[in-house]
């Protein structure tokens, strides 16, 4: 796991274009996330921010552009279309990233602990005893020691999302992607999830966070990107970005959010 902020670029996306059928959703996006950085991506719904995140780990395929993860090329434009790395190589590159979803997507038929150890056992071929100590550590970290034998349906939304974070961490990714992690939660439950994310950020985990939580973006992010209509409209350090937005579009959006 990456534990220090360095200049190493963990994720670089260049000239990303993506359409759904004939509808362009990403119209040439460039971004780079350095080791230990927390990148907050904000913007109105339909701006393409979730799609951008889903393109980073190939839940969606890009039409053209380049994606590099820890220096390895996942996709690159050849001619007019993006070509992906071979399946084996692709899988290896994607293993650097973990993802947390808006709807948690925990495996409902497995206990909390089984959710955590499933992928390390299946994918990495680890033995139960090998992964259990680390999994317990992760549960403690997200404040859910004692819920190891619960099923997801027995947990609150906030608890489920914290399990989902621990599940992604169990694969020891270098980059964590968060797709609106608190949007499906009751307001009183968002705090516990954001706290867990802040702790992760404090440990210098490299993070990309698509969010509507302006307070989180302002306080925990090292860099903010504002997207609208498939473009990056404005970006910068949180302080400057929130206090002195340059673009009219950004100002209007922030006005609405506060």
């Amino acid at each position, binding site marked *: 796991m990456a534990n220090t902020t360095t200049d190493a670029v963990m994720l670089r996306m260049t000239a990303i274009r993506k359409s759904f059928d004939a509808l362009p959703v990403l119209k040439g996006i460039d971004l780079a996330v350095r080791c230990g950085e927390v990148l907050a991506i904000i913007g109105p719904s339909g701006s393409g921010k979730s799609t951008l995140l889903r393109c980073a*780990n190939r*839940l969606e395929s890009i039409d053209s552009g380049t994606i590099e993860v820890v220096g390895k090329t996942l996709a690159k434009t050849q001619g007019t279309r993006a070509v992906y790395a071979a399946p084996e190589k692709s*899988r290896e590159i*994607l*293993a650097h*990233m*973990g*993802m947390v*979803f808006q*709807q948690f*997507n*925990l*495996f*409902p*038929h*497995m*206990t909390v602990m089984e959710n955590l150890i*499933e*992928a390390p056992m*299946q*994918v990495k071929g680890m033995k139960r005893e090998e992964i259990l100590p680390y999994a317990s550590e992760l549960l403690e970290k997200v404040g859910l020691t004692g819920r190891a034998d619960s*099923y*997801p*349906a*027995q947990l609150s939304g906030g608890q489920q999302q914290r399990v*989902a974070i621990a*599940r*992604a961490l169990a*694969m020891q990714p270098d980059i964590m992607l968060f797709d609106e992690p608190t949007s499906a939660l009751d307001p009183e439950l968002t705090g516990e999830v954001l706290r867990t994310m802040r702790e992760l950020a404090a440990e210098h985990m490299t993070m990309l966070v698509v969010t509507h939580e302006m307070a989180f973006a302002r306080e925990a992010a090292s860099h903010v990107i504002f997207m609208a209509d498939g473009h990056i409209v404005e970006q910068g350090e949180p302080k400057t970005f929130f206090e002195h937005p340059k673009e009219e579009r950004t100002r209007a959006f922030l006005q609405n959010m506060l």
Partner: protein
Amino acid sequence: MAHLSDTVWQMLEGSTVTFEIFCVTLVLALPLGVLASLGRLSAFRPVSLLMELYVWLMRGTPLMLQLLFVYFALPMVGIRLPDMAAALLAFTLNYAAYFAEIFRAGLEAVPKGQYEAAKTLGMSYPQTMRRIILPQVIRIVLPPVSNETINLVKDTSLIYILAMNDLLRVARTIVQREFDMTPFLIAGLFYLAMTFVLTWMFKRLEAHYGKYDN
């Protein structure tokens, strides 16, 4: 009383034929149904169309007609099967089609997010199906599969037209010979006993697979 026990004995023999058809059909039709449902959901058009056609044919014509076809029409083109094999072929093809539709609905009921979560954790497609999707599908399809299975117990009686001595045919033979309706009552009790056991088994299965659902 010796007479009654004799009747019950003959009917027990008949029920072994019923039971054999039931068991073999179930064992063959369930995995075949899984394959057919995967084919039906395949992105490869020819496969999904073929499976749609298969399901349409099997569900769109009476099982009785399918039995007669396998038994009488196939020999005309040189395919001659033993009685039991012919019956099993028709039953299996018919039931696999119904199971395929049930499994398709079950597969479609699992949220897309489950596949995505498994994928972002690095799991392969076979791992995802085996460990994540199918256990959830089983829970969803148990009630309808239970329904179809109970139907199968009763549908086995259709083979009387192939002159095979199943439970119902044995009962009818005795009734016609002795003008006594008791064998029909006994047959009814036999079917009820079989469906009772099945209902109980499926209840246990549903409890087992539904344990996380609270």
